């Protein structure tokens, strides 16, 4: 059974397997450095739909369809679908799942929805409450721009610290299988707020939450950063990645030589369009479901920490001049052993 360790961490005694995963992305991601790791790339930002919101739902549907196909499963085999996106009332998720007839709930934790969904799913699978869970997270550049910033055709210049929302969705199957990467522990993070108000610098807003949850996990578990091949954050981007390393250094924890960030990996950072890197639920979900899952399955990554980060702002809180509270959730993951 799941066991509480220290103040925040839950460790799993039984196997919780990341059975398989799939990811679908948009054009810019499909032309980026990780191009070969995605299952499907859609070059039309509407994906044949009338609205961007409907397009985001298609990204999720396609990711679900792909991962089910890989394991020869039907929606009937799935006990629960835990999904997350950035839109008001999670409409991308609800409109995506409504035709599948799978029991469902949505989670909101901004861009950290991928790790939150997987964390909750892992707890459910480990204690036998469900046999097969599917966890999905998505974001779409155009829906996020519409909700949080300016209309797409409005002519404005991005600041150099702003991040670009990833168009993408990742879907993961969780079960109690043996021969697959395993989730060993989960640490649900605390909301951190260092009074950053600039919505064009979300990396800076989120870095303290990531640093806090990484520190909490290491304290709770008594483990050291050098036990891991990779400490992967969700979407801190250029600025946030530098900050999380500095923040942890001040706490005497050095992750500099094993840290990477999904937001740094998904786009070509030389391109001015990608600014300070990728962001959004779809950023960590599609990078993890594609690139990272391959390395976990092949055993190239033996042990890693996956820490997805989320900026919990809303257009209302922004207009009211409030700061950006942030959160991060962490998973300890083990790759497939080849011996």
């Amino acid at each position, binding site marked *: 059974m799941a066991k509480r360790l220290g103040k925040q961490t839950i460790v799993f005694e039984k196997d919780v397997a990341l059975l398989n995963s799939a990811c679908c992305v948009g054009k810019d991601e499909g032309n980026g450095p990780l191009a070969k790791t995605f299952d499907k790339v859609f070059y039309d930002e509407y994906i044949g739909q009338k609205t961007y919101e409907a397009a985001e739902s298609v990204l999720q549907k396609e990711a679900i369809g792909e991962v089910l196909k890989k394991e020869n499963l039907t929606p009937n085999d799935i006990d629960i679908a835990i999904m997350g996106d950035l839109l008001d009332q999670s409409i991308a998720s609800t409109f995506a799942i409504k035709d599948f007839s799978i029991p469902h709930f949505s989670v909101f934790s901004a861009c950290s929805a991928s790790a939150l969904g997987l964390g909750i799913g892992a707890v459910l699978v480990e204690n036998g409450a469900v046999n097969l869970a599917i966890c999905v997270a998505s974001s779409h550049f155009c829906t996020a721009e519409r909700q949080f910033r300016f*209309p797409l*055709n*409005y*002519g*404005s210049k991005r600041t*150099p610290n702003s991040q670009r929302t990833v168009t993408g969705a990742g879907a993961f199957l969780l079960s109690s299988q043996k021969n697959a990467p395993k989730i060993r522990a989960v640490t649900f993070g605390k909301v951190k707020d*260092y009074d*950053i108000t600039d919505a064009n610098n979300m990396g*800076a807003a989120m870095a303290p939450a990531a640093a806090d949850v990484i520190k909490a996990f290491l304290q709770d578990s008594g483990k050291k950063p050098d036990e891991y091949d990779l400490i992967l954050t969700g979407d801190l981007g250029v600025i946030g990645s530098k*900050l999380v390393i500095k923040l942890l250094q001040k706490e005497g924890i050095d992750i500099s030589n094993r840290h990477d960030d999904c937001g740094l990996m998904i786009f070509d950072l030389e391109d001015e369009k990608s600014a300070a890197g990728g962001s959004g639920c779809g950023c960590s979900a599609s990078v993890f479901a594609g690139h990272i899952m391959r390395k976990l399955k092949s055993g190239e990554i033996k042990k890693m920490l996956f820490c997805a980060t989320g900026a919990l702002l809303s257009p209302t809180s922004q207009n009211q001049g409030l700061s950006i509270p942030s959160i991060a959730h962490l998973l300890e993951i083990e790759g497939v052993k080849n011996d």
Partner: protein
Amino acid sequence: MTNKEYARLVEKTNKKSNVLKDCVLAFLVGGLICVLGQALNDGYKMCIDNELSAKTLASITLIAISILLTGLNIYPKIAKFAGAGTLVPITGFANACAAPAIEFKPEGYVLGIGANIFKISGPVIVYGLFSGFVYGILFYIMNLL
């Protein structure tokens, strides 16, 4: 770490905008738009013998070009390059009305386009009118003295 200490750390880590380059580009592109406006104005004046109508026609032409380029998704690309250079002239205002009109069309003509078309330019109109009102009163009082 206190909020202030963190703010200092963020400030040190942040990338800075290249202000000089941004200003030069804004000056050049904004200036070019103004040159185009002047050329249109002079051209219209040659065709019709009415200065006021020529000025109005020049503005209308610039607005029409801006809206067309917004619809073709070319205007935001120029704006990414030019920054304030495309924002300040009348073309920026036209873009600020056309962009939400296109964006909110799926939400209907009333609650979509109607309610959102002035989403960005609305504050400019409100405070433009308000400052006109204040200036009018001041002008009236000064004339009385």
